[in-house]
């Protein structure tokens, strides 16, 4: 398990870094897909099969397909203009900050007091049932608000993209 986690973490991290460093948007998108897979694998290791499957279906299977669709439709073969290379001071301060935050995070996680497994896990329910139970009891209101959030997003997309508004 430990080894699997290490491998997945390495894939997730390196593909995450590669997403940022690719010049070509399509390659960035592909590395992002790889990253989603690694994360889904970690969910599996944590026995969260439902989340893992949903991660693949929603992110890798739908959202990234749309990304690819847009990239291909606009046919972004090469970036139109080269971005200005960052100033040396920007580089130094950026790297310093990143290292600092990384150290802080590492130190922080060693100090973290992580929770004991939830009562659903203890009750031995499958994780799909556990999620459903949580959504309809403790998280009932957030669950319903999420539907409003989605509605707002849909209305927004229509307002911004519909050809002719009345």
């Amino acid at each position, binding site marked *: 398990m430990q080894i699997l986690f290490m491998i997945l973490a390495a894939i997730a991290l390196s593909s995450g870094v590669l997403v940022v460093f690719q010049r070509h948007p399509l390659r960035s998108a592909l590395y992002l897909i790889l990253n989603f897979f690694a994360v889904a694998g970690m969910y599996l290791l944590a026995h969260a099969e439902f989340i893992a499957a949903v991660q693949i279906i929603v992110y890798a299977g739908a959202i990234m397909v749309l990304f690819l669709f847009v990239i291909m439709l606009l046919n972004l073969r090469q970036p139109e203009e080269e971005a200005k290379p960052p100033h040396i001071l920007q580089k130094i301060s950026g790297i310093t900050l990143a290292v600092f935050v990384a150290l802080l995070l590492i130190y*922080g996680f060693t100090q973290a*007091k*992580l929770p004991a497994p939830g009562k659903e896990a203890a009750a031995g329910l499958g994780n799909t049932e556990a999620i459903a139970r949580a959504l309809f009891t403790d998280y009932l*209101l957030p669950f319903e608000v999420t539907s409003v959030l989605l509605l707002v997003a849909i209305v927004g997309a229509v*307002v911004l993209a519909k050809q002719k508004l009345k």
Partner: protein
Amino acid sequence: MSVTIPSFTLSSIGPWLTLTVGAIFLLLLDALSPKGRKAYFPQLSLVALGIAALQTYCLWGRSGTDFARMIYLDNFSFFFYFIFILGTALTVMLSRQYLEDWGKNLGEYYALVLFATAGMMLMASSAHFIMIFLGLEVMSIAVYVLAGLFREDFKSNEAALKYLILGAFSSAFLLFGMAMLYGAAGGTLYLPDLAARLTDKAFVSTPLALLAVALLIVGFGFKVASFPFHMWTPDVYEGAPTSVTAFMAVGVKAAAFAAFARVFFLVFPSLKVDWVMVLWVLAVATMTIGNVTAIAQTNIKRMLAYSSIAHAGYLMVGLVAANQLGAVSLLYYLLAYTLMNLGAFGVVILVGRKKDAYLNIYDYSGLGAQHPVLAATMALFMFALAGIPPTAGFVGKFYLFSAAVQAGFIWLAILGVMNSLVSVYYYLRITVLMYMKPAEADLGPVAFSPATTAVLVATAVGVLWAGVFPGFLYNLAVNSVKIFPGM
């Protein structure tokens, strides 16, 4: 397997429910009403807002939590509900004429405004971090779209895109902050539980908790437009439709401050030593940057954008003080700011006329001679924003800076007052232009629609009333902040 849904009372989210249902109703009405027929969107929105206000009034005084401890019922939330409802109602009244000039009097616009207001309400009343996040997103997504409402307009597009990308970025910071907090406090995101746990010595200054505080400051700082996360403000405020700018300046800011204040006063008092100094620096930097840059602006919307940055700085003084007066002044000033800022934007809309043709500050030259009433109201709002008595702006600033003094931040108060002096320059410049410069050309008639006139009258009266008789609002605010420890 049976699931017992926890008991809840729908009336405790009554105002939120009314606005959401109202927005959906508007959407349906828009879809079902025959083409070309006028549907009464602004009027219906106002009705929904009125009902919501009534429900809030009935809720006033209730306390506790509901929906499995997801939301708070307390006067702090209800006070903010009133601010949001007021701000939205005034925005809706300003919008109609303005949107008709642009040919955009759409049902979707009013629906999105109502949705955004519903999101704000969730932010103000949430008792769990996920509710803060959901409220923030409902509000933000609606506002992103509203900012880009004028699709043919290049600047409106730019505004929407900038706001969306940076906003998504800041939401990520907020989420990271919540995740860190979850780890730091041993796996809970309920605000009351967090508050209880963080007083425990074992959790107080773990690096994760501090990181969480820092990330939450970034997330909220973006939404209130505080330095150094204010860069988006001028472009977005300038590009967005003016009515939306007004809505953003008052509503979004108030909602972000509501969540900001609740989290920091309720959950993080034990970490006060750590965050107070950060916010002190941010407050001073924010007001200074806002005020100094505002001087150089010639576009009235950009100027008001920088002014809103400066006001975010003043408001953060209330957070830094973190005493009773600080919290009270925050609430009072947000209400006052809603009134005076919406009033100012009302004048901007009127002077801008068809399709925002007159947005340069020199377009205000000679307004005093040709439209004395309009010029007088604008002058009043400028005085109020600058903090000159007897307006609400003065009283609010007085409370804020007294709170800082009371908490021992003498220098913060001094810097705040000096900043106010700087701001007088650019606010008064508008007044000077209106009264002392002759018009370059005939300004032509200004179309006073009844709704806009009503907004101007209401805000002007409100600004004066709150400035001369602040006691009523002060008491309400004192009543509202009792929920925080030590207030």
